């Protein structure tokens, strides 16, 4: 169990979105542009890092029977911090993400890592795990956000890439586009995995 492995597993091998299919609700909802994908990824990474840290600190004094409510309280604390900080410093982004910032509380990646990892491992490894998973989640969001913004708006990070003659595929930044994109990306990763196994 090397530290490097604990960090890198979140990017591909155990990527929360593409391999574990966790946290799909925010993934589908906020991946319509690179900017909101970045904002969501950063917020979730911060919460994941801090909650993994605190939960692994207190893991030995938390009674097993009521561990879930305690984890939720810890997570909610950090989500509140993110929510208020974002509303204060990045009001435009806060408005775009809307309800999905408070909803990080119930994001199953974060609770999943608390339950499966931070509750069982020491503080150092939990921080590395939280950071790796959070960045892996951010990468997944960025990939989807880039595909959708490029096709649906002809731009990346709000900067127009394609010529004005390109008529954007509007459906890609609408909800159906999220399902189409994630379906094809998941299919691609499965295909990759199958090829590797052969």
């Amino acid at each position, binding site marked *: 169990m090397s530290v490097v492995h604990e960090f890198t597993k979140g990017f591909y091998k155990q990527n929360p979105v593409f391999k574990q299919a966790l946290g799909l609700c925010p993934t589908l909802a906020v991946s319509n542009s690179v900017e909101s994908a970045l904002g969501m990824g950063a917020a979730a990474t911060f919460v994941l890092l801090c909650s993994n840290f605190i939960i692994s600190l207190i893991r030995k004094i938390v009674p097993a029977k009521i561990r879930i409510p305690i984890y939720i309280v810890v997570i909610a604390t950090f989500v509140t911090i993110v929510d208020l900080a974002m509303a204060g410093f990045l009001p435009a982004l806060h408005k775009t993400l809307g309800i999905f910032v408070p909803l990080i509380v119930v994001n199953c990646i974060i609770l999943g890592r608390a339950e499966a990892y931070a509750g069982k491992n020491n503080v150092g490894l939990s921080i590395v795990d939280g950071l790796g998973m959070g960045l892996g989640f951010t990468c997944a969001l960025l990939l989807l956000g880039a595909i959708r913004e490029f096709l649906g708006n002809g731009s990346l990070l709000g900067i127009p890439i394609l010529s004005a003659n390109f*008529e954007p*595929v*509007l*459906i*890609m930044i*609408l909800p*159906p586009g999220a399902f*189409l994109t994630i*379906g094809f990306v998941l299919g691609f990763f499965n295909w990759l995995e199958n090829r590797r196994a052969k």
Partner: protein
Amino acid sequence: MDKKYFVSSSPHVFANDSIPKIMYTVVLALVPAGIGAIYYFGPRALWIILIAIVSAVATEALLQKLMKRSLTAWDGSAILTGLLLAYNVAPSVPLWMPAVGSFFAIAVGKMVFGGLGYNPMNPALLGRAFLLASWPTHMTIFTDAVPRGGTVSGIDMMTNATPLNVLKSAQGILANPQQFTPEQTREAGEAIGKLYDSLDKLFMGQIGGCIGETSVILLLIGAAYLMYKRYIGWKVPFTFIGTVALLSWIFGGTEGLFTGNPIFHILSGGLILGAFYMATDMVTSPVTFRGRLYFGIGCGMITFVIRRIGGYPEGVSYSILLMNLLTPLLDRWTRPKVFGGRKKNE
């Protein structure tokens, strides 16, 4: 050994129909409406039809090659999908749109699920829904259909609302008269009256609309041929159209119940095209007797609700797509009793 000698278990029924035979017959039945479209909308309609078909067949052949499946792009199903997709776009769309729509219809509507027979939804309608959601402005600008010599560029066309568009906005005005001037309300009433007086134009197809949906008479000729050949049944189209007619007669009027004009609702929009050619798709409609009745009724209800209350003036395509998704449930729900079998609770 003679290839016609098969050893198989029962049922020993021999049908002379094959997929290409059925598909090409349906394509043939759609030809009159296509000729009508070229007559009304000019040669541009022909280009759109050809591009859509070529794109559909090319996409299917390419994907079958990539997926290492046997090449069946010429079995007619891709041609039919392309043709139906072309019939479902406005005649003024840019020429790349039918190509993109056909690609989406075949790639996402059909091949992703495993090819012909595995698609849960009608691919052509899925392509149309994709185009409508992606480029709504192109898909909802309709040109008036008048016989013309026509130019290939199609610049000489006049834009005009479809009858259902006019009806929707007029009914919107009549529903809230206090928000509009008396002049506007009077005009809205007159517009509806004019629509109801032009039923002969609707029947012949001299109206604005998608390429293949306007001419009711030409579509009916093809449908009658398909019914004679027994490739489409009566249950889905008749219950579909009947439900729309009944609901529009009861709730479609502006002066209370039972004042609607069912004939207008039957003849306008894509109802005839949808009911006879797309709702009857063998893959995506139920196989049981009762299932087909429910399927048609459901399509009719959703169509009317969208036309009367929803945001779009026309709801045939969405109603068929939604009912396509219910098809497996309808089949399971209406599974006939096994002959000689008993009910469970006996």
